[in-house]
């Protein structure tokens, strides 16, 4: 799942990028508000982790800009300011969650999972379709109750498809959500991952919509 991290502190940004990558996210890290606005205006992210004290354009202003264009991407605010009015203002401007520095890496990861889940209107933490179940917190997948081993990339792709089950996702949308700017993407990498997923979870789960993209559906084979 691709996350945009906006944090001006070099050491904290570096750590968060590494830590969230360990937790299975694809993390793009930007260091100022202007760059964040530029990135958010052209690409989509599963969530944004936003520091408030940013150079050039502060975090609240980025948030305001994002909500003004009716972009509902979940935003998790990082801040060192514990004054109530800062918190209230952040939430009023459309932040979805708020974490005070210093924080725990696991807490950030968990809150991000919850944000993404809620953004998809899903109250229960486990995604399921047919006999396949995916637990984002444990990063585990089962098929008919039996554990299935997936690579991190396959897991992320499956999560994306399950979160949007019943909807067709274009290749571009999938690639955007899976890869950071630093990842070198092979032109047929996506097909390879889909192929592996089908091999591990059965052919019926993921359907190819020709010329458009892929869709996860529980439709019984006809």
């Amino acid at each position, binding site marked *: 799942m691709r996350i945009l991290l906006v944090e001006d*502190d*070099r*050491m*904290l940004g*570096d*750590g*968060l990028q*590494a*830590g969230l990558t*360990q937790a299975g996210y694809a993390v793009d890290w930007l260091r100022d508000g202007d760059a964040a606005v530029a990135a958010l205006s052209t690409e989509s992210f599963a969530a944004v982790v936003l520091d408030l*004290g940013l*150079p050039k354009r502060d975090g609240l202003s980025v948030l305001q800009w994002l909500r003004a264009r009716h972009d509902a991407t979940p935003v998790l605010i*990082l*801040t*060192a*300011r*514990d*004054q109530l009015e800062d918190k209230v203002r952040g939430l009023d401007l459309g932040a979805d969650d708020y974490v*005070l*520095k*210093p*924080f*725990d*890496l*696991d807490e950030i990861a968990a809150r991000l999972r919850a944000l993404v889940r809620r953004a998809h209107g899903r109250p229960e933490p486990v995604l399921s379709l047919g006999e396949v179940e995916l637990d984002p917190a444990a990063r585990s997948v089962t098929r008919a109750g039996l554990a299935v081993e997936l690579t991190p990339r396959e897991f992320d792709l499956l999560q994306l498809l399950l979160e949007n089950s019943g909807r067709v996702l274009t290749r571009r949308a999938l690639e955007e959500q899976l890869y950071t700017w630093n990842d070198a993407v092979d032109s047929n990498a996506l097909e390879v991952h889909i192929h592996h997923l089908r091999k591990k979870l059965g052919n019926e789960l993921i359907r190819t919509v020709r010329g458009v993209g892929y869709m996860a559906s529980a439709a019984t084979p006809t």
Partner: protein
Amino acid sequence: MSGAAPYSLRRRLVWLLTAAVAAIWLMSAWVVYQRAHHAADALLDSQLTQVAETLLAIVAGGEVEHFVKELHEHAGRNPVPIVFEIWHTNDGAMRRLVTSPGHNAFEASLPDGFSERSYQDARWRFYALQDDAAEYRVVVAQAHAARVQLAREIGLSLLIPAALALPLMALAVWWVVGRSLRPVDTVARQVSALDAQALAPLDGSIPLPSEIAPLRGALNALIRRVAEAFENERRFTADAAHELRTPLAALKVQAQVAMRAQTADSQQHALTQVIAGVDRMTHLVEQLLTLARVDPASQGSAPAPLDPANANTLAAVCAELLPQAQRQSQSLVVKAAPGCRVAVSEAWLRIALRNLIDNALRYAGEGAHIEVRLARSGSACILTVADDGPGVAPVLRAQLSARFVRGEVEAEGCGLGLSIVARIAALSNAQLDLGDGLPRADGGHGLAVSLRFNEATA
């Protein structure tokens, strides 16, 4: 108003005004009494003269017998305030012809004209007149008490209404003063309604008399200053929270990353970051402590004695920082004018200098040239640290000495160095200036920070 017992302005005004008015009234009554006395004198003197002349005319006209008879008939009815004697000269001897009824004889040797004598145990005023032929002599007299009585009556006629009016006036003063002091109550109420957490100036729209408006003006000026200081402190706390929590968050995150790292490389990287983070926190804590140390509040007395050789201090601080400069391929040059000494304590000069040079090393970038100069300018000594780094736009220079403000350049600094220097400058009566530094190859200039100290005498 601590210590002294409070007194009522109102009561004081009532007493003072009433006493003043009473005194003025008494004085004017005294003056009126005096003038009335004079007027009574003049009036009664002319009355005496007239009576004497009339009497003389009567006796000279030969109607003495008839007149005396009339006089005796009327004596009981009308107590005449004027008594008289008529004398007649016959064959060279004077004898009393007539005396007003019921009176003793006057002294015989009264001079002509006015005179005052004792008569019947009181003071009397006499007037003696003789006709041209010196045949008759008339002496008239009046008790002095009559005049005093008259003057006193006139004086009292002024004092009695005053005595009645004084209490009324005191009441009026009481009321007027109370009314006039109401704006003071208003201001007092406004001040007591102030919220210490959110100081706002007093409402200026309530009209105040020109005597009390300056009080509100002064209070508002004070409130603004206090609110500003308050806001500064609040901002400092918020900024300090940010500056302390961010590196702590970085430390924690990097440590967690190191713990979970799956490759040796990434673990190594995270651990290096942890150590760098501890160094950074150390620097921040040092700077905060230095800032607290140069806080005017913690600085009870005047700066310590002056350093006899500032140039040595310059050299010493530069020597300390030279390894850092060399690591970054930077050059560090000291140019001190001989015999130039600044009026600042050794310890503070070291702190200021270390921070200025450290800033230059941090922000001027790799390979920069840094020059430390101490030069005399008139009666001042100017300490300058100049570099040929990227410089700072003139509009941003003023903000740099605020706490936790860094330049636009990306560098690891905590943003307190120049605040510390600014504090030291303020405490040593030095002037802190940010200007163009050394010229760069591309035609621009780096940054120069200078401190203009008074030259040390002695």
